[in-house]
């Protein structure tokens, strides 16, 4: 479980996050939703120690500051939105960096097995010996997700992982995330913009608004007309299709 106590973050003199107290359950897919500028990405990078803030972050009953840097990178991993990768590495080399926290640069059999597994999880077999600077945006994104999978941390943070991906790959990545949460008891925390991906795939939803947490709870309790209206300031229709709540908001 991850607990956040009194998190405050300012950029210059502007509050970005104010007084965040939150606990994120283990073994679930957790979506962070909210309008642009609500602080989702900032919150994600604070929990994953990329950005500093006031307040305390406790991961599995231990303060984040008390973790050794290597230990922490086996505990949590993060993929940010802006991972420009103008570097000439093959896809497999990039993915093998995911094993760095475990084996440094001396990869053993187990590492290679995990790397190959991540490659086939992301359908990258046909690309694995290509240089990443020759890939499309979506392919790069998949390679990065594969690297995060190879890192094999307990908690996986993804900032808009579906960016650059077509519908087919978006759906297959969400399915994969659900699978690893179930089979390997990982915890996935992601920022999503498409409310229907949040609704269909997450167990738990945290909604941010105006620098604070507006709602946090099980997905089915958050995806309601009233709450969505409060979160996004717009009207939604919600239809139940095969047990999935689909939000309609285009008109």
């Amino acid at each position, binding site marked *: 479980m991850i607990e956040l106590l009194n998190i405050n973050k300012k950029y210059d003199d502007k509050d970005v996050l104010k007084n965040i107290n939150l606990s994120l359950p283990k073994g679930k897919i957790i979506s962070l939703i909210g309008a642009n500028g609500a602080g989702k990405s900032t919150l994600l990078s604070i929990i994953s120690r990329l950005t500093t803030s006031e307040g305390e972050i406790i991961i599995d009953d231990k303060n984040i500051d008390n973790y050794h*840097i290597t*230990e922490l990178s086996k505990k949590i991993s993060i993929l940010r939105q802006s991972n420009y990768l103008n570097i000439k590495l093959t896809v497999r080399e990039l993915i093998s960096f995911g094993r760095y926290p475990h084996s440094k640069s001396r990869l053993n059999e187990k590492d290679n097995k995990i790397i190959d597994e991540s490659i086939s999880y992301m359908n990258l077999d046909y690309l694995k010996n290509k240089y990443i600077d020759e890939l499309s945006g979506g392919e790069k994104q998949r390679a990065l997700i594969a690297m995060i999978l190879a890192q094999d941390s307990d908690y996986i943070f993804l900032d808009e992982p579906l960016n650059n991906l077509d519908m087919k790959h978006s759906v297959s990545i969400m399915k994969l995330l659900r699978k690893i949460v179930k089979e390997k008891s990982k915890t996935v925390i992601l920022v999503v913009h498409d409310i229907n991906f949040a609704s269909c795939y997450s167990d738990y939803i945290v909604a941010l608004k105006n620098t604070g947490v507006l709602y946090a709870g099980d997905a089915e309790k958050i995806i309601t007309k009233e709450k969505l209206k409060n979160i996004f300031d717009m009207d939604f229709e919600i239809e139940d299709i095969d047990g999935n709540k689909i939000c309609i908001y285009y008109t």
Partner: protein
Amino acid sequence: MFKRIIILSISLIILGGISLFIGVSDITPLDIFQADSDKLHIFFISRVPRLMAILCTGMGLSIAGVIMQSIMSNNFVSPSTASTMDWAKFGVLIAILFFPGATLKTKMIISTLFAFFGSMLFVQLLSLIKLKDPIFTPLIGIMLGNVVSSVTTYIAYKYDLIQNISSWLQGNFAMVLQGRYELLYIGVLMLIIVVLFATKFTIVSIGEDFSKNLGVNYKLTVTIGIIIASIITSVVVVTIGSIPFIGMIVPNIIRIIRGDNLKNNIWEIALVGGLFVLVCDIFSRIIIYPFEIPISVTAGIIGSIIFLYILLRGNKHVKKTA
């Protein structure tokens, strides 16, 4: 990979052999075989040290270059385009000024301190200005370097040291003699350290967030990288003098062929670095034989031609500054 390393090593041995027998006094392999004592003397006091100095310099500067490129995430920085070399020269001047009669070792230490300080300053400067186009980074480096260099020259004039410093303003292997170049072997030590931490440096070159995620201490690795580059640069400046371009060109050529993973390309960068300086030095010695052109001139000319080629090839492999 091994095939290429073997080919490179063989060319290095052949050209190294040729290099040993070029010079004003005529020495042939036969003389060595016959153990002609005068010629053996020249051979071991001057020729062999010169060859070793050439190899260590080329290798060292290339390693320094690729490390700087990794930690600054920019393919155009190097000791001579990020002001490191000018700071090292400034350090030597200060050493001469305040510690007259300083040994090579003292000069090297003071010069390293200055190179380290200056390079750190440059890195801080970069993180403050946030450049959009990666090509501006080396421009700022060269500007800063020129300012430092001007100050050096000014002080040298003022204290009548210009004769004294001109020897290391322009790199020259003609002065290399036994007992005056051994510091360069520190470069080999640095190479070993870089090989051990190769993956770390590659990860750092991708970016700060990326490194943090993988549990790599970004700031520490950057600092270590700058220390390594500063030591190599100062050693070269103190013993040989400044030589432009090598640190930038060699890693870029290898990158185009082999990619950016230091773990794979570090040996080739080292070998090609040695080879590049060796070829430049052979040119320097035969073009106006029996006289010599300073290596910095030859390296500058050959280097700038290759640099232009890399630039015109397009910015495809240029990394964006973070």
